[in-house]
């Protein structure tokens, strides 16, 4: 279609400027809603991903091959041997930033008459501090400092249940992998405020050395948490590490953070479903509004269409003219929507709106809508295709008009 037909299509749109603006504004709102939702969802995913990775201690987990597919409690008893040597080997991999051995254990922690169930982690304090969220969660006291010391950090909920505060002595009890009972006394050096309440009520951190003594598992680890260098491809790095460990015959398996994060996968699926549903609702509203506008336009211009057909315009040319009008409305609306979306995003981000804590979490965050170029591209395509779809039937109807009947239309 040549430029003159596009010019005619553009002018036709403004025969009823108010109606076109109204329909266009629905496209704008649809575009803004889609891109803003995408930006918000992206921020949520990024935050959730970051929390999940840092909550696991890194991007990859090296675990005992025997523990794969087992429950957390069972896996906690299936330890990696020669953890120190294995950690050093993993840490020298080209994709790896750092690696640290961790021990996972469960039991009761007691203070005075009170005892509460906990979920414990034995870790290397310096590495834990740099690779995980734990240091940011310290609400009271100071992070573990002595890698050999009998120090303990408690989740806020757990500390409240015990009535413990920093400086108090607590007794940490557990069952060793051999089935025996063991306990150590440790001083509370920090109270944490963990963002997920269920974990806040149960978390306990010990340095690796006393945790290994407690479990009678010196030189062993439940897992080696691996942090990758920035920009490294997760799957490629996991593959390279698997090959390296296989060659070393360590009897270890490598799990990516996403394999250990069913919650993250479930949330992603839920958001994707919500996003799809919202998109369908928006597309339906836009289709109905645009189809109504185009149908009215065809009805009002019936005699004109009859004239065009009479002077020799082909039916496909008539159809294309109306489709071009729909396409231009889609492009124009999307363009205005893109500008609107950028402005609204800037305003929202500048306002630093505090969000309430999500369910299960103890702290909220600041609303930040990310700029997702792909969402803008998809928005353009989606709105344009939607407008084309909405214009199709009216355009087809216009093209199929009988010129004699159209010329006498009142």
């Amino acid at each position, binding site marked *: 279609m040549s430029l003159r037909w596009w010019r*005619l299509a553009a002018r*036709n749109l403004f025969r009823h400027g108010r109606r076109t603006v109204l329909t266009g504004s629905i496209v704008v709102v649809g575009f803004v809603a889609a891109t803003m939702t995408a930006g918000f969802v992206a921020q949520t995913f990024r935050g959730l991903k970051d929390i999940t990775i840092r909550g696991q201690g890194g991007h990859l987990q090296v675990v005992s091959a025997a523990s794969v597919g087992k429950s957390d409690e069972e896996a906690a008893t299936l330890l990696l041997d020669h953890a120190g040597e294995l950690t050093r080997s993993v840490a020298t991999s080209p994709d790896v930033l750092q690696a640290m051995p961790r021990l996972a254990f469960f039991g009761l922690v007691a203070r005075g008459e009170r005892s509460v169930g906990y979920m414990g982690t034995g870790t290397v304090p310096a590495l834990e501090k740099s690779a995980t969220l734990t240091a940011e969660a310290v609400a009271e006291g100071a992070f573990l400092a002595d890698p050999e010391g009998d120090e303990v950090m408690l989740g806020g909920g757990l500390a409240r249940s015990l009535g413990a505060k920093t400086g108090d002595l607590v007794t940490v009890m557990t069952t060793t992998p051999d089935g025996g009972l063991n306990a150590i006394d440790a001083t509370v050096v920090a109270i944490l405020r963990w963002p997920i309440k269920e974990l806040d009520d149960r978390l306990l951190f010990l340095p690796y050395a006393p945790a290994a003594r407690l479990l009678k598992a010196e030189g062993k680890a439940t897992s080696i948490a691996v942090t990758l260098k920035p920009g490294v491809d997760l799957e490629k790095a996991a593959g390279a590490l698997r090959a390296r460990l296989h060659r070393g015959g360590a009897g270890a398996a490598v799990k990516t953070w996403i394999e250990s994060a069913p919650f993250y996968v479930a949330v992603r699926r839920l958001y994707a479903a919500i996003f799809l549903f919202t998109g369908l609702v928006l597309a339906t509203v836009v289709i109905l509004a645009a189809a109504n506008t185009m149908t009215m336009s065809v009805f009002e211009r019936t005699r004109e269409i009859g004239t065009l057909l009479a*002077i020799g315009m082909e039916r496909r040319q008539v159809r294309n003219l109306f489709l071009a009008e729909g396409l231009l409305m889609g492009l124009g609306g999307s363009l205005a929507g893109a500008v609107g979306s950028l402005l609204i995003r800037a305003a929202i981000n500048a306002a630093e709106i505090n969000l309430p804590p999500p369910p299960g979490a103890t702290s909220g965050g600041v609303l930040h809508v990310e700029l997702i170029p792909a969402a803008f591209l998809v928005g353009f395509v989606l709105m344009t295709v939607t407008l084309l779809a909405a214009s199709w039937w009216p355009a087809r109807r216009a093209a199929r008009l009988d010129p004699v009947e159209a010329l006498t239309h009142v």
Partner: protein
Amino acid sequence: MSVPLLAARGLTRIYASGQERVVGVREATLSFAAGELAVLAGPSGSGKTTLLNLLGLLDRPDAGRLELLGEDVSTLDDRGRARLRREKLGFVFQSHQLVPVLSAEENVALALWIRGLPEVDCRTRARAALASVGLSGMEGRRPDAMSGGQRQRVAVARAIVGEPALVLADEPTASLDSETAARLLDLFDALHAEKGIAFLFSSHDPRIVERVPRRIRLVDGLIVSDETPAGGAS
């Protein structure tokens, strides 16, 4: 013997109106030569517009045969009929039927746009057509800034810009006052004389019927007379 511009044999058009069948045109047979000037005359409902629509390839006959420049066009498909309409025919309607968002020049050029001609050609020829109907200097005006007579002249320019063999005009003076109608008829005469364009009118306006040399009268869809009064040129 030269091939007639238009030849109709036994053209019949029947409309269904509920259970009833209404005969619009009954077995119309006529021949029309290049450069001829004729009018389909008759009272309202006599079938003038129906016959004009059949001859202008806007409608299909239920029976009969129609030839345009010797080619049987009765059975042509939509695309073929559209091609002939834009290349061989021109149309003027009772109301000007101009596109309101286009200027006078663009409205005239529209008939060439649909042929896919280059923009420069379209513009040049549209300006020439507007000049030939006395509208030089009004190329940029939109229909809503023109009088009824001027709009109808633009419509005439649109009809002739493609240099058609025949212009079909359905009640072209019906919506014009006497003075404007007279000027439009003078214009038709001039275009006929200068460019040799054939015109076929449909009208019950005596101002047209009296001025046109060949008068084809219809009553109830039937051609009752086809006369060229003595001294009438065709």
